[in-house]
């Protein structure tokens, strides 16, 4: 099967999978659309964490890791701890990453509207 045929079948399969979004999922989507158009912010989220709280959680986690690192523990786990700390640093830097990504996006919008690049 060549790539064109493969893509055709994948699209068909993905389109067919939408049939599974009937009943309750469709009702929730229609309700969400109605609320969004009415300017009503979603009342709750599955994780219950606003974006700022998610970033704060990342910072708290980083602080906890640093404190734990300062407390002597038996066994060399420096490499493991460094890896975990590095990941938490990435996660706690969420706002900075989005800021730079949004700069590119705003620049694209300006170009698309015929503004200066």
């Amino acid at each position, binding site marked *: 099967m060549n790539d064109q045929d493969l893509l055709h079948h994948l699209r068909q399969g993905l389109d067919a999978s939408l049939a599974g979004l009937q009943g309750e999922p469709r009702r929730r989507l229609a309700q969400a659309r109605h609320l969004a158009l009415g300017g009503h912010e979603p009342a709750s989220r599955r994780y219950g964490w606003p974006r700022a709280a998610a970033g704060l959680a990342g910072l708290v986690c980083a602080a906890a890791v640093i404190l734990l690192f300062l407390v002597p523990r038996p066994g060399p786990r420096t490499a493991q701890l460094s890896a975990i700390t590095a990941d938490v640093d990435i*996660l706690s830097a969420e706002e900075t990453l989005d800021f730079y990504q949004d700069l590119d996006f705003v620049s694209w919008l300006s170009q698309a509207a015929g503004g200066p690049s």
Partner: protein
Amino acid sequence: MASRGDLDAFLAEVEARATRMAALAMGNLDDALDIVQDAMFSFVRHYADKPQEQWRPLFYRVLQNGIRDALRRRSVRRAVVQVLDWWRGGEAEPPGEDPLERLADPAARDPAELAAAGQGMDALLAAVAKLPARQQQTFLLRAWEGLDTAETALAMGLTEGSVKTHYSRALAALREKLKDYAP
């Protein structure tokens, strides 16, 4: 100036595909519906006044941000569990992967087995579900939603070169996973 009716029609047109994309990224429908709900609200709030030809990449930009945030929150919880496990003296597995590059869903069924069993559509979806998050979402935006490379790059927060790389890798992986697929 777009009307409420135009916005409603646009969101009604993209909501199902957006939900399927989010569900493939998150591994469950409930999370996906929450993400799409938030994306609709953010899109209407921030971008409804933009030209209609920009709505599609704008909406998927918001959706991809939501998916990324949700995967990050999941990674934070996983990191906390790992730290606590390490503290208790357990054998914590260091996260060697970029937390934003979610491993392919281990719970996804094997596409080759599904294809051999004649479950064609399930095999196709399982193959897509098994892709790493960035490859998966890039592929879906390019091949299914029909965004071009530039639009996909902006939706994903990637360079156009990265989009091409992720797309070609996704296609190669799907070609391999579905080599025994017969429609």
